[in-house]
């Protein structure tokens, strides 16, 4: 491409790029100050500054229990999904078993099937085992939804790993188990950890399946927010939204930093 073309083309693109960035994150950022308003309604610019709405959020048991429930579900999901997902990624990468293609399709299908279908399907199945509205039921549901991210993340780590390293370890006298413990596992650990964080995020923000899988006795934060948004909208919702966003951003930053740590040969 000639330089002159590049120059005007680039400056145009850069302006466009900035617009896209504003479009992508601007709306979410707008919410943050609204939760700190001293006024009575969700308005922009916010009137004054106060922590009233955060106080209201913390004193409302619907929000606080929602927060605790969400956190419990997300942590358990992250643990279960990363263990199952890592085992599976290893099995697919290293092992041979019949129907590998079908297995791959099954693992990725929770990302493909519309969540509403998963939601009503899981509800009508789990309700028979009295699992709807329980921590266990939610963890099962969210694990199914988030495990593909773990499998993909760990598989990527496994693919980028030099297979010669495992051969070298065997050559140097390490049996298969020690080769795994000392070489393979440490090298894919960033992928496992990032996968666990992605699983946490998927569970933390999940609404649709949760709407069907929770009951008034056990609600997650996004479900409580969903009900609030459809009824009265006061600045508490903005405060809750800010908390959700802050958690997401923190965990995501952590995940991206971890992913960078992957030892590169």
């Amino acid at each position, binding site marked *: 491409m000639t330089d002159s073309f590049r120059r005007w083309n680039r400056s145009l693109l850069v302006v466009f790029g900035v617009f896209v960035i504003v479009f992508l994150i601007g709306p979410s950022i707008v919410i943050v100050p609204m939760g700190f308003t001293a006024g009575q309604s969700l308005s922009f610019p916010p009137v004054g500054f106060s922590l009233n709405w955060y106080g209201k959020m913390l004193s409302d048991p619907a929000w606080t229990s929602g927060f605790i429930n969400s956190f419990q579900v997300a942590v358990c999901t992250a643990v279960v999904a990363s263990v199952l997902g890592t085992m599976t990624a290893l099995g697919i990468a290293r092992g041979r078993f019949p129907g590998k293609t079908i297995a791959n399709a099954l693992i990725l299908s929770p990302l493909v099937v519309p969540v509403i279908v998963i939601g009503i399907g899981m509800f009508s199945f789990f309700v028979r085992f009295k699992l709807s509205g329980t921590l266990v039921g939610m963890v099962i549901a969210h694990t199914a939804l988030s495990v593909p991210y773990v499998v993909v993340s760990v598989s990527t780590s496994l693919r980028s790993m*030099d297979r*010669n*390293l495992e*051969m*070298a*370890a*065997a*050559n*140097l*006298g*390490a*049996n*298969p188990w*020690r*080769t795994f413990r*000392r*070489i393979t596992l*440490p*090298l894919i650990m960033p992928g496992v950890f990032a996968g666990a964080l992605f699983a946490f995020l998927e569970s933390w923000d999940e609404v649709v399946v949760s709407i069907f899988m929770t009951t008034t006795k056990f609600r997650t934060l996004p479900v409580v927010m969903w009900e609030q948004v459809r009824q009265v909208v006061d600045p508490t919702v903005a405060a809750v939204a800010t908390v959700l966003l802050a958690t997401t951003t923190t965990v995501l930053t952590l995940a991206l930093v971890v992913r960078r740590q992957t*030892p*590169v*040969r």
Partner: protein
Amino acid sequence: MSAHLPSGRAVRTDRTALALRGLRKMFGDVAAVAGVDLDVQEGEFITLLGPSGSGKTTTLRMIAGFTEQSAGSIEIDGVDVSTVPPHKRDVGMVFQNYALFPHMTSAENIEFPLQMRKVPKAEAKQKVADALKLVKLDSYGPRYPRQMSGGQQQRIALARAVVFQPRLLLMDEPLGALDKKLREALQLEIMHISRQLGATVIYVTHDQEEALVMSDRIAIFHDGKIEQLGSGEDLYERPISLFVADFIGESNILHGKFAGGSVVAELGTWRVGDAAAARASLGADSPAALVVRPERLRLIPRTGDVPAGVNTVDATVTDVLYLGSTRKYELRLANGQGVGVRQQLGGPETTWNPADEVRLAWDVDAGVLVAGRGA
């Protein structure tokens, strides 16, 4: 033997360190290795040399136990290890891309095989220090592989492969990823270290110069088999086939038929030395090829006497290349075939120019007879 690392054995013993018997490897219907027999003496440095796809790396991997052979056996120190898993074979290996564990320091990498063998901590530490010293990287113990250059990484890989005194040291194109200068320096270093340790080395490369420099013996691989096994001089001076003659060094090949102690072709009849004729043992009228190295050819005027014991063929100079210590002539024979001649400079040689019509001459004993195409 020193306290920590094996010291050099003064002379090679006659004990067989490695024996391959009828080794084969099939990938589907294709034989990657099609029957290899090889005996390696203790302390010997053997190079498996061949073009890519000739089966040399597959052979090495079978020795290490990474690939299971389809047939045949592998004996190390007289024991069949065919069914022994790689981690129990006790052979050291240096990989082309080093294969250093990126999450461990140099010292930890070198200590790894000692840990696997449950060597006491203090002893292991001393051995690591000795191994680092051996490869002249004494102070590099705490460094991670990514903090070192390619040459340094390969030296650490070498230290790791010898620190546990393996029965065999395998090297899979260890210098392939390095630039020429570093490669040459490391060739010498690997030679010295392996001699110092008295190690039995199986070295894989496709670089013939490297093979000539380093090896006691070279096995030329071709189509999954060993085409010829011998010292570098054997292979260069007395190739047994067209493939070896062509693969090792530059060569001029004159095709014809073998008849009455000579190679007969349209361009002339060339006598073959008795020793060369005996080695090739070709039947009368079978296709034959006469191999003459560029430095064995001389350029003489077309007019004038041909001395006794010399073969000749007429040629035309096409290019003259000045290469410093030598001058290289590219010539064309009457049938269009190209021929190269290397002239050592510094003597009273005549200089020829492009388009000069000359005669190529060589001593009868300088020509090597091999079976020709279609034989």
